[in-house]
């Protein structure tokens, strides 16, 4: 008897669970990319981790004005963003490193790159002995990450940091163990300033590191640098700021040592604005201009130029248009560098191209 009653209880419990699930499922069928019965249009995006906090802020603010439109963005990494827009499982993708020609060819239709904000990669270090920020030039950073410079009191480092108390300590290099847009920007700069780096290590979202230990994600590298005296690594600016890590000033192409900041990164984008190609796929590293911080890059939205669904395309275009106009103003508060005006205009020109059968949507 007891067993039976227990069985009944368990049965009823699972029935209740079932009912809950069906209640959820009975919201009605939704064609992927169509309208959701549970309240208006739904737009799905996924990709780069770096802009996730900003995009979720944009979506939340935009949702206050357009409560019926459901937009969602998930951070699955730049590689994931490129893959998913190519497979058309999402309505827009996002990436820190622009798609290469091969990746663009693999996509079924033309994909537009729309830059939204900029990120900076900073060289961060853990050297309690150094009181003032350390200054480094590109080739020296490359030599450190290649393992050619092994001590903190190396003459090359000392020459750029007169008066700094550099200890006779080994340099512990920390790099990313996973594929990453941050790495892509960092090694792109290394390859530009060091021919040796270009030959031996190369570029890409992950490279064959000659030396050092790996950390997973920006948070992994931040953590390792924080815990290892004598270490040096590279992370997104915002991670260094949030973790109070020391950040090196880097010598730019005009010969000035520049501290990474929102302004010096936007200045770098202005520096490349003149030579930006039509598809906006450009590297911002080693940019011209006295105030430019040399290691930074755009982060992009990836959107198909020719869309199928007019209602959805209109909503998507209006959201991106709003993001570039109004959303940019929220960037600085969250630690992102806004686009300089000359690049913003080019980004908006791309949004104007999004169409369904020739019909565009920009107000």
């Amino acid at each position, binding site marked *: 008897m*007891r*067993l039976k009653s*227990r*069985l009944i*209880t*368990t049965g009823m*419990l*699972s029935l209740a*669970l*079932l009912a*809950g*699930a069906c*209640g*959820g*499922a009975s*919201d*009605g*069928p*939704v064609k*992927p*990319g169509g309208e*959701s*019965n*549970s309240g208006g249009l*739904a737009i*799905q995006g*996924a990709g780069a*981790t770096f802009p*996730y*906090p900003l995009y*979720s*802020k944009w*979506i*939340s603010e935009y949702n206050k004005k357009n409560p019926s439109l*459901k937009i*969602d*963005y*998930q*951070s*699955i990494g730049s590689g*994931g963003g490129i893959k998913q827009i190519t*497979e*058309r*499982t*999402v309505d827009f993708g996002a990436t820190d490193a622009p798609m290469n020609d091969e990746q663009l060819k693999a996509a079924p239709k033309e994909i537009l790159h729309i830059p939204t904000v900029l990120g900076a990669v900073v060289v961060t270090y853990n050297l309690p002995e150094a009181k003032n920020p350390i200054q480094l030039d590109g080739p020296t950073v490359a030599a450190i990450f290649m393992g050619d410079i092994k001590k903190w009191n190396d003459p090359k480092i000392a020459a750029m940091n007169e008066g700094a108390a550099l200890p006779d300590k080994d340099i512990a290099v920390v790099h990313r163990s996973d594929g990453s847009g941050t790495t892509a920007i960092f090694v792109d700069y290394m390859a530009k300033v060091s021919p040796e780096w270009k030959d031996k290590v190369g570029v890409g979202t992950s490279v064959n590191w000659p030396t050092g230990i790996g950390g997973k*994600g*920006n*948070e992994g590298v931040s953590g390792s640098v924080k815990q290892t005296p004598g270490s040096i690594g590279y992370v*997104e600016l*915002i*991670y260094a*700021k*949030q*973790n109070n890590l020391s950040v090196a000033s880097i010598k730019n192409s005009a010969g000035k040592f520049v501290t990474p900041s929102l302004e010096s990164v936007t200045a770098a984008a202005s520096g490349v604005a003149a030579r930006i190609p039509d598809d906006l796929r450009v590297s911002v590293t080693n940019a011209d201009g006295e105030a430019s911080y040399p290691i930074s890059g755009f982060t992009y939205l990836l959107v198909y130029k020719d869309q199928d669904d007019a209602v959805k395309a209109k909503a998507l275009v209006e959201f991106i248009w709003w993001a570039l106009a109004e959303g940019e103003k929220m960037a600085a*508060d*969250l*630690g992102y560098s806004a686009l300089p005006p000359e690049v913003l205009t080019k980004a908006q020109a791309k949004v104007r191209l999004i169409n369904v059968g020739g019909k565009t949507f920009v107000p």
Partner: protein
Amino acid sequence: MIAVLVIILGYMLYRGIGAINVSFFTDLPKPVGEPGGGIANAIVGSAIMLVVAILLSLPIGVLAAIYLSEFGHGWFAQTLRFLTDVLAGIPSIVVGIFAYTLIVIPMRSFSGWAGGVALAIIMLPVIIRTTEEMLRLVPQSLRDGGLAVGAPKWRVTVDIVLASSISGIATGTLLAISRALGETAPLLFTALGSSLWTTNLERPMASMPVQIYTYAISPYDEWHQKAWAAAFTLVAIIFVLNVVVRFLTRSKHG
């Protein structure tokens, strides 16, 4: 053992306590910098996908176990047993990719269904093997007794073998549920995650492990705290589930 559990729970609570309040369990996630915000959609999403996974894996799992323990003796049963072990050893991320290829790409959308199927595949071998072990524990004399009074084999299987090992099966299912609840990898590329209310299985769906992951890799302390709080909630739910099922299926012998 208890000390380790207490230390883990205590540390998660210590790191996450600041984020735990009523709205943490009833609200949607909010962007960084805005106060409040919760993981309600992730709790609901995890529950829905788990129900899907249970509905898919429990009947198949128990039937397979009955076959293995009561009927299967030849090479086919051996092969099935071997394949179940292989399935149990497949990394969960691979299961995720399988569900991605099978469901997400043809549907051209991430979905709760895909997440549920991925979790079901992870639960299946656990359910089969534990249930089979439990059925084998039933003494042969009980089966013989049933057969001796003229009951057909299926009656013996249902009324004697299954009925007397119900608590063991429940425990096995619970183990599988606990395993599935904590999985992030198979959900990343199937259910994807969401910051919206999602009860629609054809849309991307939030889940607790993915939400924890998203918060944990962010640069912000306030989100880290939420990750700890969500992790604590997840462990607490698994703990309560354990206690409830233990209570419902406690052995009649003691």
